[in-house]
């Protein structure tokens, strides 16, 4: 099997949402449903010293997330029907619409807020890694759309040297599901266990 993976350069991402919009347009997802979401992670403080000078320990950075096509995917583990499955050839995780009952357990269990039940369609939907484009030797749409070249995609062995396995906030610690997401972290990045920051755009991403 060739496990495919995403690469995200958090030193480049400006949080422009072009990836998100390109995905939405290409996948024609229903209203309110996004397969790729951009999280704004903010925290820290500003302080004034005795001379009246301000110094800042504040941080803000963005995190563009599709599915991590995890090694040990929680969504697949809990899915009662086997609709949520990991492809044996590519390691991409996707939903078999012909099996899904729309119970939403995958959405409850994924710690990356990825699957959603499309109530009109009656089944779960999520990023499938643009599997049909990958089969044609192309990149996912979100990757090609990024104007900052902050996203890459390819076999894990080609990508893994470019950064570290995703283990920074606001993501969960990597040991839970083994994400196939390699990140080049911005100097502002906080560890996954950080409790000082908060996702500043919860309404947008939930």
């Amino acid at each position, binding site marked *: 099997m060739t496990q495919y993976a995403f690469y995200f350069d958090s030193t480049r991402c400006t949080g422009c949402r072009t990836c998100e919009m390109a995905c939405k347009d290409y996948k024609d997802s229903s209203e309110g449903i996004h397969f790729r979401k951009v999280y704004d*992670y903010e925290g820290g403080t500003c302080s004034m010293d005795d001379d009246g000078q301000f110094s800042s320990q504040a941080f803000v950075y963005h995190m563009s997330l599709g599915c991590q096509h995890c090694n040990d995917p929680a969504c697949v*583990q809990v899915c009662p*029907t086997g609709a949520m499955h990991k492809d044996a050839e590519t390691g991409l995780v996707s939903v078999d619409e012909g099996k899904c009952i*729309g119970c939403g*357990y995958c959405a409850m269990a994924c710690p990356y*807020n990825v699957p959603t039940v499309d109530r009109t369609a009656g089944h779960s939907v999520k990023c499938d890694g643009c599997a049909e484009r990958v089969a044609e030797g192309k990149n996912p749409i979100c990757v090609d759309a990024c104007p900052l070249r902050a996203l890459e995609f390819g076999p894990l062995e080609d990508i893994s040297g470019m950064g570290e396995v995703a283990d920074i906030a606001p993501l969960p610690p990597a040991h839970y599901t083994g994400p196939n997401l390699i990140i080049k972290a911005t100097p502002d990045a906080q560890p996954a266990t950080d409790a000082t920051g908060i996702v500043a755009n*919860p309404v947008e991403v939930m």
Partner: protein
Amino acid sequence: MAAGFAFALSEISLVLFTTLAPSGAVAFALMGAPLHRGALDAYARERISKLLCIPLIVTMVGLVASATHLGNPDNALYVIAGIGRSPLSTEVAGAVVFLALAGVFWLLTFARRFPLAAQRAWLGVAQLAAVVFVGTVAFAYWQETIATWHLWEASAALCLNSLVGGPLLALFGLRAAKAPVSEAFAKGLLVTAGVALAVNIAVYALQCIDLAAMRNAMASVSDLAPGFPAFVAAFAVLCAAGCVLSARAGKTPAVGDGPVGRGICRMLVMSGGGCLMAFAGIFLMRFAFYATHMTVGL
């Protein structure tokens, strides 16, 4: 509205399912217990057997409610594929086995010939299936990535809920059947509900302490489900009132007590009202449970 409350509202059919089905199953097991006694006359046996449909209907209503939350029930047969891997499949299997055994037992009691020994054996297996089913519901959401549900208190509370609602519903069923059960048995059911309630409140108190410290990058539990302790207080009051109402409903009537008279009506209204109050309390806590849904990440 708090995000957790909105989530719980969207899963309201699961709130109803987890309120009714476990208590219904425990009520079935307890209400069937007198049928194992030798002293019971054939007429009383028949009435209890027939009215086992009460806990069965309560369980069925819960199950039907849970099916309404599915996006595409046509694919439901695929659920078999996940047995052993997905705790949700295991729960569905638990429900199907229990309802099949209990439902067929109930139907067979209408048959002219259903030997006593066979009745008892079948009932025993159905009662065991009821207990297993409650266990599968308690662990249906046992998933490491859902931090707030991966707590022993959450699973223990569901079992205890069924030990509060189940005995009260069983007592209602036995009273409706005018079953000549001993006062000691009736008292035993009430004491079980009372003790389970006390332990349940203690478990919820511990859960409150655990939940208070929990947060992820999106929210804290107190943002998601503000007033969790107030939910516990309302649960305690409603369930305690339910137990008292059931206890004060009076002595379970026996056969020669004649046709359904005013005394029996009053008893059933009080006993049924007690069940409804307990179910209302359990419903609130199940709502609060869904409201606390929070993963280890986003």
